């Protein structure tokens, strides 16, 4: 009898099979999320073109995402420029090429660091707030309330947020470039004693407008992806406050990953 019961009991799956199954489930979820975010992007684009255009909502989001991030992006820019100038000047000192500090910092900032760091700052500051706010609205039926009042929630809630990311991350990228170069100038010229003329002249010589455009294009793409990911996660949150917390965590991880992955592919495509 006992043997029969033991035979009938469900068998524990093999650890390897379990691991493969978990990997498969995770991969399916990632593919499903990428599809969901892409579809949401198309829906946002479609609703952005339809009337009514709620400019008040758009300006409120531009203010929140852009103006609200000025201080943190400027501060990050200053210190990034300072650290980068300090480290690169130590390296260039080894072969008497300190004059290359300015252009090196400028090219790295404009092409890579400014769009990536600005988008990360926007993700942490505004993206998390977007995801939490939308998630709370979803679980407390405020999104359903909008629908029952014949107001499309994608148009009312998501369109201004996504457009603000698309516009404001490139603007913040320019701010990051500016403050980063100021920080770099301070360390190179004032602290390290590199000639101001050399620093500025060499930077101007090596930096092309195309480098700035590359950073701005990246900034726009990151702004779009970050706001879409955060809106997607918040908009589809479920399961009360725990679900909102989980959605926000997932949104932060997915947004940061999307920045680094897109950075590589956009960089390759632009060259």
């Amino acid at each position, binding site marked *: 009898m006992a043997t029969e019961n033991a035979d009938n009991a469900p068998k524990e799956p093999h650890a390897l099979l379990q691991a493969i199954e978990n990997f498969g489930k995770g991969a399916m979820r990632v593919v499903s999320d990428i599809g969901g975010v892409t579809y949401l992007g198309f829906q946002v684009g479609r609703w952005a073109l339809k009337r009514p255009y709620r400019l008040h909502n758009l300006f409120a989001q531009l203010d929140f995402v852009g103006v609200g991030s000025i201080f943190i992006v400027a501060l990050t820019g200053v210190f990034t420029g300072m650290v980068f100038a300090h480290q690169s000047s130590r390296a260039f000192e080894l072969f008497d090429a300190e004059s290359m500090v300015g252009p090196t910092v400028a090219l790295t900032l404009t092409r890579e660091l400014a769009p990536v760091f600005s988008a990360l700052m926007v993700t942490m500051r505004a993206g998390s707030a977007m995801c939490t706010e939308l998630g709370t609205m979803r679980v407390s039926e405020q999104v359903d309330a909008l629908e029952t*009042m014949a107001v499309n929630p994608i148009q009312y809630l998501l369109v201004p947020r996504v457009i603000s990311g698309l516009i404001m991350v490139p603007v913040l990228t320019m701010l990051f470039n500016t403050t980063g170069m100021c920080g770099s100038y301070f360390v190179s010229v004032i602290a390290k004693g590199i000639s101001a003329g050399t620093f500025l002249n060499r930077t101007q010589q090596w930096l092309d407008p195309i480098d700035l455009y590359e950073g701005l294009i990246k900034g726009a793409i990151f702004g779009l992806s970050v706001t879409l990911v955060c809106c997607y996660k918040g908009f589809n949150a479920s399961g009360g406050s725990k679900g909102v917390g989980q959605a926000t965590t997932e949104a932060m991880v997915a947004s940061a990953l999307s920045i680094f992955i897109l950075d590589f592919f956009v960089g390759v495509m632009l060259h």
Partner: protein
Amino acid sequence: MATAAPESAAERPMIQIVNLHKMFGEHKVLTGINLTIPEGKTCVILGGSGSGKTVLMKHMIGLLKPDEGQVIVDGEDLVPLGDARLEQIRRKFGMVFQAAALFDSMTVYENVAFPLREHRKELSEEQIRALVRSKLELMSLPPSVEAKFPADLSGGMRKRVGLARAVVMEPKIVLYDEPTTGLDPITTDSVDEMILAAQARLKVTSVVISHDIASAFNVGDYIAFLSKGLIIEFGPPEQLRSSEHPIVKNFLQTWFGKN
């Protein structure tokens, strides 16, 4: 199965549900609902948890599409309609949510004014103010609440503001999703009175989704009993009370037995 339609032929149907089926995955939620709700009356859809009440209500307002069947609102079938026409139909509805679903980033005034600002662009700010004030007064809310945020209100007051927002566009139909769930007995009575007062003054058709038997008998002109995705009893409260259906009897016994 009970005939889920009022006996009086004189009453014009406002909502008609015909043979409604809905599945989520393998799970059958609605299994052939037939229900007619007459104009100007209050119909309570009573049933236990998981009986499909909320799913049925979401079909009435076009938030869900059925797998089979018709949802006819004011003479028009919602099922084949596209998004644009559905949004127009939804303007015939006002909905009061279980937890009021007020926008917590807006004040009470902004919440009630919201549908007007979205859909009645021709109104001046003075006209909007007058309409908002009149609806708040109708719900016995003083002007002092206008500047408050939803988080500063009690549960009962939030429900009143939710109803003021639901009726500010003067809809033909008001849907109430579990209006008395989680409220104390005194607040429950006041919410029942609020529903009856709104019904008397605005002459709307009301649909109340509830599992609160006392409240259902207080406010309902008709009560539809929903069990396992099917309306198993429909009629005026007294008819439901004398029902011989074992599930209905058992459900009502839980309250009438104690009271």
